[in-house]
């Protein structure tokens, strides 16, 4: 079973295209124009609120070298691999991965809802596997490849699932959507031809207040079909 992105350079490509440091350094779209113009597509793409932050050039330090380290209780500086780029973060060891993504790196696609692993709104990939980012310490994510909704696709280069969510009207308020999309994209990587039951199982940990489940399942089936068609 594969838990790696199918295209090993997918993340890097997206990161390079959306590296704000590469041009004017400002956000590419304002929240307002985004919402006005692109509507659902924009929300699905999960790019709202992305803030510029330069990617480090240096390779990540091997976090596992040497003897037992002690970090904290004050802020520690460490590196994380996020959406194909190495990011340097200074945070206390108690800060969760979700906290670092949202509050330190401006990656607000992953949502904070229950803060106890029960709703799936904060789902990201860790080495291709879905995890609830509120349920792990950021410091514990060192040495792993993290992918957030911002790294999955972009408005002009949408992931098949993001296209399918728009086509099938699979969201209402959109708050659960990034988490749903990340849970489903991991599931489709592992199993490109899922049954409706397998799709339901993949999103058993994702709660939608608006009750969009039937459309979400349709969207996942459509995305799987589209992806298979391309392959």
């Amino acid at each position: 079973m594969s838990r790696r992105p199918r295209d090993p350079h997918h993340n890097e490509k997206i990161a390079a295209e959306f590296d704000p440091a590469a041009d004017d350094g400002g956000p590419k779209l304002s929240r307002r124009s985004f919402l006005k113009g692109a509507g659902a597509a924009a929300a699905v793409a999960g790019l709202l609120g992305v803030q510029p932050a330069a990617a480090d050039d240096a390779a990540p330090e091997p976090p596992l070298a040497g003897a037992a380290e002690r970090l904290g209780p004050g802020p520690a500086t460490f590196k994380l691999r996020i959406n194909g780029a190495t990011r340097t973060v200074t945070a206390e060891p108690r800060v969760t991965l979700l906290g670092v993504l949202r509050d330190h790196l401006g990656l607000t696609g992953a949502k904070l809802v229950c803060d106890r692993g029960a709703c799936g709104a904060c789902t990201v990939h860790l080495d291709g596997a879905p995890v609830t980012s509120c349920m792990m310490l950021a410091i514990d994510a060192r040495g792993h490849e993290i992918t957030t909704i911002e790294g999955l696709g972009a408005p002009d280069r949408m992931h098949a699932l993001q296209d399918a969510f728009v086509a099938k009207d699979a969201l209402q308020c959109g708050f659960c959507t990034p988490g749903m999309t990340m849970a489903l994209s991991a599931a489709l990587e592992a199993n490109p031809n899922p049954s409706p039951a397998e799709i339901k199982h993949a999103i058993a940990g994702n709660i939608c207040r608006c009750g969009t489940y039937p459309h979400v399942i349709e969207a996942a089936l459509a995305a799987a079909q589209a992806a298979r068609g391309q392959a």
Partner: protein
Amino acid sequence: MHAINYEAPKSLDEAVKLLAAHGEKARPLSGGTDLLIQLRAGTRRPEFVVDIKQIPELTRISFSLQHGLRLGAAAPCISIHENSDMRKYYPGLTEAAHLIGSLQIQSRATVGGNLCNGSPAADTTPALIALGAQARVIGPKGERTVPVDGFCLAPGRTVLQPGELLVEFHIPAPERHSSDAYLRFIPRNEMDIAVVGVGAALSLDVSDDRVVEARIGLGAVGPTPIFAAEASKSLIGKTLDAAAIENAARLAIAVATPIDDMRGTAEFRRHVVGVLTRRTLAKAAERAREANQR
């Protein structure tokens, strides 16, 4: 969450030294799916959180038909159900690990954390009890081996002393016609705490369908997970017919000491113990008959 020190030892030796030095001021961190909730709620306030996932012995899964299974306490559930030996030889334990929370939780949660957290409703514990798993524990005073059926003492309390670390589980090699099964009852399809969980492991003599070995573990029907010793013993040497299964179910109900709570009444739980004991025995037997493990 209060401020914490984070330490990540790379060897068992280092971990033992750190945990011994900190004593009650430290908690091991495995997947964190219980611990993070407890830290946030303030129900545990360790000064030191010792991440045990960089210690090779704790994350490995190694299996051989000669020596059986060594399952690292900190191997995430996802690595269990992605392991073909686990699915083939220990399908009951594998399905228990695959029931914990959601896939997101299973990417992190571990069987060791499930046991050490000490919940009577922990899903993998009855499955471990059924398989006769032994827990290898290491601490400031050296090593010891504790059977999983004696590991939990009370809700949230285990045999572990401050400074002690659960390293791995040892599970005997499967017999030729042996297998296991785990079932739980929850009021919804997924993402809930067991109202009742039952694990069963059987070894059969297929020439006359007699039971050579049987073990039944019960979850969520007492202050700790329970080894149903009498029910298990009652099956040995018997043909696994409806009467034998019914008798075992009755004996399993007899050792359950459930309470009334919002998930179900004690009476309902006793009833479900009977139902699930019958079903897990039938499922384990079906798998054992089909199995040809060596």
